[in-house]
């Protein structure tokens, strides 16, 4: 199961500048593990000490936020597009 992951600018230092990488994974959690194996240090940027996806890191599978799917257990299928997008604080009041 190979998926494409879009890497945001602040994390590209860890992917040798690549803005997109391919990994084998059957779930979002496994994707994070395999990303970290290939690009050491990514996991701690994406997940907190308890292993949960950080509050201001959004992970989208085919444009749906995994928080509203099954979080790290969200299954991945061959060819899925995954985006990692830091939530940027904005807004008013």
């Amino acid at each position, binding site marked *: 199961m190979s998926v494409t992951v879009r890497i945001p600018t602040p994390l590209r230092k860890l992917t040798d500048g690549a803005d997109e990488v391919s990994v084998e994974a059957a779930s979002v959690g496994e994707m994070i593990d395999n990303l970290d194996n290939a690009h050491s240090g990514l996991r701690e940027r994406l997940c907190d000490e308890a292993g949960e996806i*950080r509050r*201001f890191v959004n992970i989208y599978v085919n444009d749906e936020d995994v928080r509203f799917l099954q979080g790290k257990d969200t299954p991945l299928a061959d060819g899925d597009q995954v985006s990692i997008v830091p939530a940027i604080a904005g*807004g008013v*009041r």
Partner: protein
Amino acid sequence: MSKSIVRALKCRECGQEYEIAPVHVCEFCFGPLEVVYDYEKLEGAFDRKLIESRPQTMWRYRELLPIDGEPTVGAQNGFTPLVRAVNLEQALGVSELYVKNDSVCHPTLSFKDRVVSVALSKAVEFGYQTVACASTGNLAGSVAANAAAAGLSSYVFIPHDLEQGKVLGAAVYGTDIIGIKGNYDDVNRLCSEIAGKYDWAFVNVNVRPFYAEGSKSYGFEMMEQLGWRAPRYVVVPMASGSLCTKIHKSIKEFVQLGLVEDVQTRVYGAQATGCSPIAASVKQGTDLIRPVKPDTIAKSLAIGNPADGYYANRVLRETEGWAEDVSDDEIVAAMRLLAETEGIFTETAGGVTLGVAKKLIEQGRIPRNESIAVCITGNGLKTQEAIQGKVAEPRIIGPSLDEFDALAEADQARLAA
């Protein structure tokens, strides 16, 4: 003048601290940065007497606002009336109700003059010459006006379909006003990109940590004007959710500094039903905020993806408050209620806040016999579209006493009937 007690910027998520700079996001975990202070440095040097001796502006609490020197922008802003709303008390059947009335805040008639005063004073300290913002209207007007008075250039970005009063109320100050084909969330996303590319002080992007602190002055004033006490219940409008967290912070700071007694103030959040992602999360008992596409006349609160939603949710839950939302019709009804009982014409957001306060009182979530403060943050003259056709039109007569007599007679007959 005492020295700044600002310690650093601190990530609200992972706790990493950063030196004071125009940054707003943690490099490590992407959490939002917040200004933190060394309160112990104020011990014995910041009391009621000192505050009362200062001019009546938001800057009388300057030790708790994050600038180093004197305010260079908006030195006169703030210190709006706190109104004991006796007629409204009767209408709602409660015993002690106050309206903190920022619909008359100097100079642009909304509470945004507080946050902008801090943001632009800080921007000047950082050496910026151009300031900018993403706005649902009030912020655009405030940035434009305060920048003009300070001799700064400004760019303001708004959704293209805002109320005329908000558009004119920014354009008049000679700002560069840019309408974006999209909603506020689209404007905000674009502004994050622009902020990354242009060397401007974006008040709600790169100087947001400083900007947001300005809201605390609203809470400080409310407590001083209540006779140095915190209200037991406070109802706050929510768009990004920031105001609600900062009012809570203002109360905690005053309690910590011994300026008021801790009365366990409960904070309640108000949203329009057509854009209520934070209220929905509170009602559903979760801290996950699901973004929405806004559809409400309360355009100043129409943020579908609220930046501080999680923290607002946490304040409401931790203080044992609650959140509610009201329909467009309820918003207009509440605008009229405030105007007809207290003579205060607020914008749609104020209708949301009072509408929600009324609902919470009727639900029994806010009791009728303790102090309640309602946060009115903007002026009704800027959102006239919302009530057009819903209030009386003038009755047209000729300039003749006979015609008026006939009209008055008809009125008296109707009253007698």
